[in-house]
């Protein structure tokens, strides 16, 4: 599924949060979004998911879904929700459910069968590290790291064609970071899904993303093709603090 951004603008008062004249994320891309705080990464994700109103411009999703050609503007229809999974922050989690109940809830409303859900959860056993399922603990009582895991796993339950994760490496310990990197690469390879992640961790981003967009003040200032970690040096130079 392609994500086509055209003349997209969002201001918060005087401050420009997003200003992207033209940008296409191609079907099957694993795109890393990097930039300093306030660069507009989360705002761009929220605009792509129609969670905030754009001042101008459109976000379209174009591609094939269930053997039909689709081309939709996300703000005019809810069709895109059928093939998009996302996790931005805790505002996505229903915290008075246990992880098991939350997964079952998401699966049911996405039309995923119980068997398929169980098979899906089995793939994440190592990632969950025995701390998520069967704990009889409400999500609100989980640690930040486990909440993050619940959000990521739930976003992937419906096997989305578009997956959007904001700061997926946050809170995670090194083993879980490694696990999620592997999971995302594998998922991208096996399903051809379009994956968008944002991160402050340049190493992880360059490790797994063949394409990286660098945001500054809401503008994509560089669109970097990252072959064999070639983007690492360029990004380090950009982020290096110079007197």
């Amino acid at each position, binding site marked *: 599924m392609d994500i086509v951004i055209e003349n997209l603008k969002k201001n918060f008062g005087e401050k420009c949060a997003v200003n992207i004249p033209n940008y296409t994320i191609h079907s099957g891309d694993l795109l890393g979004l990097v930039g300093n705080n306030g660069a507009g990464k989360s705002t761009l994700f929220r605009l792509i998911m*129609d*969670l905030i109103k754009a001042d101008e411009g459109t976000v379209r999703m174009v591609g094939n879904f269930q053997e039909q050609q689709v081309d939709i503007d996300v703000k005019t229809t*809810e069709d895109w929700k059928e093939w998009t999974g996302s996790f*931005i922050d805790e*505002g996505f989690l229903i915290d*008075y459910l246990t992880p098991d*109940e939350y997964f079952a809830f998401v699966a049911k*409303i996405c*039309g995923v069968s119980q068997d398929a859900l169980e098979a899906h959860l089995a793939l994440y056993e190592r990632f969950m590290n025995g701390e998520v399922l069967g704990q009889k603990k409400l999500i*609100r009582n989980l640690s930040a790291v486990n909440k993050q895991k619940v959000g990521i796993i739930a976003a992937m339950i419906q096997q989305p064609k578009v997956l959007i994760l904001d700061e997926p490496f946050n809170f995670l310990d090194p083993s879980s970071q490694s696990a999620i990197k592997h999971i995302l690469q594998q998922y991208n390879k096996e399903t051809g899904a379009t994956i968008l992640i944002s991160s402050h961790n340049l190493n992880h981003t360059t490790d797994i993303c063949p394409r990286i967009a660098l945001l500054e003040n809401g503008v994509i200032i560089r669109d970097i093709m990252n072959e064999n970690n070639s983007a690492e040096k360029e990004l380090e130079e950009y982020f290096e603090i110079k007197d």
Partner: protein
Amino acid sequence: MKQKLTNFQLYKLLRQNDKLKNKRHPMFEKNKFAKFMGYFMIVYFAGILMLLGATLPLAFESTMRSMAAFHVLDSGFFYLLIVDFWTRFMFQETPAQQIKPYITLPIHKNFITNMYLFRNGLTLGNLFWMFFLVPFALVAILKYYGMAGVLGWLFGYWLLIVANSYIYQFCRTLILKKLIWILLPLVCHAAIVLATILPETNTLGYLFTDWLEQCIFWNPLSWLPQIAVIVIFFLLTRKLQAGMIYKEIGKVEEVVVKNTSDIKFLNKYGAMGEYLKLEIKLRMRNKPVKQQFFIGVAFMVLFSLALAFTSVYDGAFMTSFICMYSFVVLGMMTLVTIMCHEGNYIDGLMSRRESIYSLLCAKYYFNVLLLLVPFFITLIPIFTGKIEFMMSLGYLLFTAGVIYPSIFQMAVYNNSTLPLNAKLTGKQGNWVQQVVSLVAMFVPLMIEKILIVCLGTTGGYAGMCVLGLIGLATHRIWIQNIYQRFMKRRYTNMEGFRSSRQ
């Protein structure tokens, strides 16, 4: 050099923050309109109280010739305090203790709790009964003791009402902790009422009369009981609230999920079943939501039982009022804040297709099913011939098909998140929601009376049934309409929910 603020400067600073909080609340504009509506209601009730205050002394004097009118009121002042106490549940919430932002600042930990408690005692709301008491005193006391006597008596009563407000604060805080504490004021009030009714000589009544008469003479000893109650309950409430606030902020409390495989029968209803489960779990696993829900259900059952087994509410108006109230009360208490709790996870819901529509449907089915509780209980007074079957059926269908659709409109406009698990550190409701509650309480009665005048008793209730059935039959259409209007306002609402999350 550091400059330390005086307590008064600090109070002013925190007061300013509270004002800004209200001004920048996502529902401020709507609150302004509802405030305007609210003032109308205040004027209306004040008018009724003034009328009562001016006419009751004459009624007392003509029926109880051996006693002065104010002695009659003094001997039964406790009834006024009971009414005052229980009406506070509708209009006065525990102070929303916005303590969190100040917790790590160098402010004494009792200062903010004290500030809110003081403010609650000195609120203008505690003067509302003066609309009744001032005309009463002018008619009943002025001619005997002059203006000084009137003022002394009013001051004594004001102290009583303030003391009552602190007792209410204490009980309300206890009830927030555990619902069972509602029995404390219930039992105490019942005991005092029985103590004044059962003995042949109303000794308690004489005691009250003598005590309150001393207020007329500005005898400082007559204020001591009130002041003692104020001080005791202030300190008790402060201690209680402080403990609860720190527990809440520290998130010490954990809900232990004993059984996660419950409500399995809903599995066969697919996604709708999941939303129904969500609705049930929302009410069962979040303490403030659960408490509000159970208080609503308790009121619902109590009113139905009172109608069924007692003669307290005899008389055409009171019977229909209580019958209607037993159906409406739950929705009135829980549905005016519809979507406010969902504000906590609105992003998650909005990233699923038509989830808000399904959620609204589930909420509707859940609340309509609950209406069967008062319906079944009111079958008892129906069998004893106390009320008509058509009345109960009329209110059941009218509530489900007219009142609920009206309250559900709030789903379009509510855009302020209510915390799921904070009780004292949480936020209060707003004026719009209170006005809608009042409208939900009185408008159905007006419609009932109009229908009865136009169509006769049975015809009137049949009319309510028809209106209700239309609402029920078309529920998918009007819920769809609410959903579409919600989606048109989605950006504003989501922004409001996000900015008011704790």
